[in-house]
């Protein structure tokens, strides 16, 4: 083994990250090479010193409490609209049956929940996506520049959607258009992943706190929904669910 290649392997040797063959080769080299043996000694000293002297900054109890509060708030913000269904699901079987009967008697609107509303919107989102591809009305403003697309919406909408180009991550912005969903004009942003078109619909929502990603699949289309900073986001595509979810994560970052 040459000195150069040995030098590169001393650091992983000390971290126990070399396989047995490589490790014994480096060790053998150091038996005859003073410079490399010295380097190993210096690395060892450095490691001891860093472990002993570099402060480990621990989180304070205040931070723990603060995060705990914020998480509970975020969790309950999501739970609330679904609370009736949640309770029913965890009630006794008899209670569950009774509740179902009640729901049947009172009609579906009585237990109308955000989830049901969400499913309706998901349907609308898919229809809008399909229509945009069929009618050839995918894009009103064609640009891969977020600084062109975002101002285009000004004056057409009463809110300003976040516009982010994810071309470096493989989700290139191709443009935007106006659409109509959930009884209001919304921003439609169009992205391209290989041969797949992603429509991202954005409009204001009542919920001020953010929500976790939820995924739906309707007639072969994948849908990812989340909300943050007072806006609700619906991404829809025939792209596979994992990549669409990745897109949503990148977008909300």
């Amino acid at each position, binding site marked *: 083994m040459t000195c150069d290649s040995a030098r590169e392997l001393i650091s992983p040797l000390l*971290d126990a*990250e070399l396989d047995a063959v490589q490790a014994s080769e480096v060790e053998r080299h150091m038996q005859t090479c003073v410079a490399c043996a010295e380097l190993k000694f210096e690395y060892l000293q*450095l490691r001891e010193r860093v472990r002993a002297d570099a402060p480990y900054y*621990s989180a304070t109890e205040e931070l723990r409490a603060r995060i705990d509060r914020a998480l509970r708030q975020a969790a309950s913000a999501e739970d609330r609209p679904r609370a009736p269904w949640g309770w029913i*699901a965890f009630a006794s079987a008899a209670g569950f049956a009774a509740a179902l009967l009640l729901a049947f008697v009172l009609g579906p609107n009585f237990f109308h929940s955000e989830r049901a509303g969400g499913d309706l919107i998901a349907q609308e989102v898919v229809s809008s996506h399909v229509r945009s591809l069929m009618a050839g009305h995918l894009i009103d403003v064609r640009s891969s520049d977020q600084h062109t697309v975002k101002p285009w919406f000004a004056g057409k909408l009463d809110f300003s959607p976040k516009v982010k180009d994810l071309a470096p991550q493989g989700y290139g912005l191709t443009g935007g258009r106006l659409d109509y969903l959930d009884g209001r004009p919304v921003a439609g942003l169009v992205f391209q992943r290989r041969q797949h078109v992603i429509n991202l619909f954005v409009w204001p929502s009542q919920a001020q706190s953010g*929500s976790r990603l939820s995924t739906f699949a309707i007639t072969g289309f994948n849908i990812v929904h989340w909300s943050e900073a007072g806006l609700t986001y619906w991404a829809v595509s025939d792209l596979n669910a994992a990549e669409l979810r990745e897109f949503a994560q990148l977008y909300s970052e």
Partner: protein
Amino acid sequence: MADTIAFAQFEKAVMPHLHAAYNLARWLLRDHHDAEDAVQDAYLRAFRFFDSFDGVDARAWLLAIVRNRCRSVLGQSSRRADVAEFDERVHTADDSVSGPESGALRNAEILSLRTCIDHLPAEYREVVILRELEQMSYKEIAVAAAVPVGTVMSRLARARIRLKDCITARVRGVAR
């Protein structure tokens, strides 16, 4: 209710790594308040994306999110992003390292090491912290830092050479 279960699972898997999260953020941002804010943001984000956690290594998964938060904070304020604009005063006016036992020389040693780590570029600093203070394997660091294992190896080796040189230079500087 499903979310209540998700919340309990999240707490169990992710809350134990709060110290690791703060330690990394504190080293990357070099500021207590910024680090606390970044960690809180990271936790909320982690909670929102908890579905994407594969259940294997919650610490590496969380630290990847913390690191991303820190990166975007650093990106927003180029003031702090640049190592050249590194503020030496922050490091001299910190009493967290002085205990009753430690003498002035010892303090100087500790300060000098810390300054050298702080002077490392962020991508070197993070691998050093994750390796030496969290004692993570290269594979775990690769997850947290979102780079291949080979990159972890070469970054660590380079970081160590820089650290070694920095410490040596400071010792000479003091002796002169």
